[in-house]
């Protein structure tokens, strides 16, 4: 069972004490988090760590997920793409009606009788129409800086029904949002199976299980199989790197989330694009790649790549940096907050540029080590779960008006 004191050696006693004091103020209060899925994607990952940690502090927190069929998740995936700026997406009246209907059914089944209800992302957004007592916050994890206006205008009246909106970055906050908003950078848990320290022999065991040669350099991209993450671009970069550093191998790791019907289709495309190259490994949860395996692969990377065109924030970058691995990435979402060009990795524009940077890190292990260590410190100071938890506690205190 995870305890807040376990984090003291990493983030310091002071931070832990501050968190305990805040938790004391709202001890016994009820909070509910609702999102689309309990598996796959960054939100489920954050909640799977944050909720038990908050419970260990004496707060009565539940984590509940939506029940919906494939048609519902097809609609919400379209909404997700539209909010991220896909102007070609339209939601029909029938689709919107289904979206509201499924949410109304869920509202009747979920236990939302809480002091604070936090609803994550657009999928469960309409639950607020059935709100009862308590304060409601909408936590939007996606980049809504330039949303598809037609889709946003249908959702906005429901956003107005919340007491507070929470965004991952300042520029994601839609202009003229009618309700108060705050910024909460996403964070990672250094003690989660995905990020906790591993023995080198365990890393090697994972690599060899998947046929990856532990004695040759390895690079990789961890991201959903999704056009926004540009997995095909990652393979292009790899091919160029390989011509400079022939022994290099590439691992592409994605997972199939229940709310992401496009995933399978894109996985197929990536496999086809990789072709017969035996040094490219396209892996997913269906191959048994879970948190521990991702942890092992990331630790084995000489460099991580992240060629996403859009990112909610880019927590896979955070994970790699935390493991002391420099990241070569494009400027998407929260990546420039994490990848400081020439200090914790490299920011790149195109395939050629990215390949040059990756090859440089492979040829100069001392440089990769230096950047990796700086990246780890950057994450330790700025992007660990204790910050996310503090934000939630503070938000709760403020929303319910409890005093110490």
């Amino acid at each position, binding site marked *: 069972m995870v305890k807040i004191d376990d984090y003291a050696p990493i983030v*310091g006693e*002071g931070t832990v004490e501050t968190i305990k004091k805040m938790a004391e103020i709202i001890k016994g209060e009820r909070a509910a988090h609702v999102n689309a899925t309990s598996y796959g994607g960054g939100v489920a990952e954050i909640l799977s760590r944050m909720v038990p940690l908050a419970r260990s502090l004496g707060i009565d927190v539940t984590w509940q997920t939506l029940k919906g069929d494939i048609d519902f998740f097809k609609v919400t995936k379209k909404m997700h793409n539209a909010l991220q700026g896909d102007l070609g997406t339209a939601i029909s009246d029938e689709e919107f009606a289904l979206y509201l209907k499924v949410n109304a059914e869920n509202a009747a089944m979920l236990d939302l009788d809480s002091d604070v209800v936090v609803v994550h992302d657009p999928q469960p957004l309409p639950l607020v129409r059935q709100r009862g007592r308590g304060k409601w916050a909408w936590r939007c994890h996606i980049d809504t800086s330039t949303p598809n206006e037609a889709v946003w205008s249908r959702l906005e009246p429901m956003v107005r029904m919340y007491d507070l909106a929470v965004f991952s970055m300042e520029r994601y906050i839609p*202009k003229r949002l009618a309700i108060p908003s705050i910024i909460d950078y996403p964070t990672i848990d250094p003690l989660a199976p995905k990020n906790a320290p591993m023995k080198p022999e365990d890393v090697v065991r994972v690599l060899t299980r998947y046929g990856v040669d532990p004695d040759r350099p390895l690079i990789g991209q961890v991201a959903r199989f999704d056009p926004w993450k540009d997995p095909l671009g990652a393979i292009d970069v790899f091919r160029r790197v390989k011509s400079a550093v022939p022994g290099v191998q590439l691992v592409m790791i994605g997972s199939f989330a229940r709310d992401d019907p496009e995933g399978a289709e894109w996985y197929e495309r990536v496999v086809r694009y990789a072709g017969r190259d035996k040094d490219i490994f396209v892996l997913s949860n269906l191959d048994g790649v879970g948190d521990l395996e991702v942890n092992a692969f990331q630790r084995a990377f000489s460099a991580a790549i992240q060629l996403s065109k859009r990112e909610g924030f880019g927590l896979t970058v955070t994970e790699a940096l935390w493991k002391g691995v420099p990241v070569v990435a494009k400027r998407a979402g929260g990546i420039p907050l994490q990848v400081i060009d020439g200090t914790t990795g490299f920011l790149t524009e195109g395939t050629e540029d990215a390949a040059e940077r990756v090859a440089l890190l492979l040829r100069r292990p001392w440089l990769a080590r230096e950047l990796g260590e700086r990246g780890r410190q950057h994450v330790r100071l700025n992007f660990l779960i204790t910050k996310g938890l*503090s934000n939630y506690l503070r938000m709760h205190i403020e929303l319910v*008006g409890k005093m110490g």
Partner: protein
Amino acid sequence: MTLQKFLVKGATLEIDRPLVDALELLAYGKHPYRILVTNGEGRVVGIITGRRALEVLMGVRGTGMVEKKGLRGTLEEDVGIFMDECHEIFLEDIGVEALLKFMVENTIGYAVIVDHSRRLKGVFHEVSVIERLRGKRFGAEVGGFMSKSVVSARAGTSIEEAAQTMIKERVRRLPVVGSDGRLSGIVTIGDILRHILSGVEAQEGLERDLTEISRAPVERASPTKTVFARPEEDLGVAAERMLDNEVSGMPVIDGDRRVLGVVSRIDVLKAVAAVIGIESLKAEING
């Protein structure tokens, strides 16, 4: 080049001080827009900005608390409850070039520098950088780099309305424009905080005072001198004017005093970096 010579002290407040102390620092302090919140051992635990304070005063944030405790009671609460997490923290061995890149990439005007125990060593601030660009000209005009989406207030707008606009639009300053469309002044979050604080005389009845004070026209809070730029001016000239007048940004106007845009210190820093490159920028500020 050592980072040390660029660092400024920055305003700090301990986590268990009342929110009203933060308000006073924000209204009258030397570097008034943000205050670092530290614990008893001098470790940085958070940050509080002028916007945050204004949100509480205007009843936009902390509403649950204002409902229960009233504004006066809320202002007596620990600043720790209202602060935000600070996400721009760097170890003291970070290089100046890395900080410049971070600030320019993310349009962030400051970085908080700590030692390995998170004890505050100082703040790397855009002002320290721009100060070293005094006298330099870049052959690039303000008009090419200003922000053209301007949120402004009509002259005669109430302070309350101006404050709500700044909160909603997430801007720190509003050019005030007359009915003829010409610039008549500018008001910042700091100006409004200062105005409110100086207007609240009695210890009790803050709520009532606040309502009266914020009903006044925005010009009351606005400084007597309006600092502005012209689009054809060199970035270096604009930067110096902001330093000389201790403002973080200014409206850009044409010959008829119509507002064309707004330019801020971080806009200038980004623009200079874009025009001469980070390497040269680093060389320039190193003298």
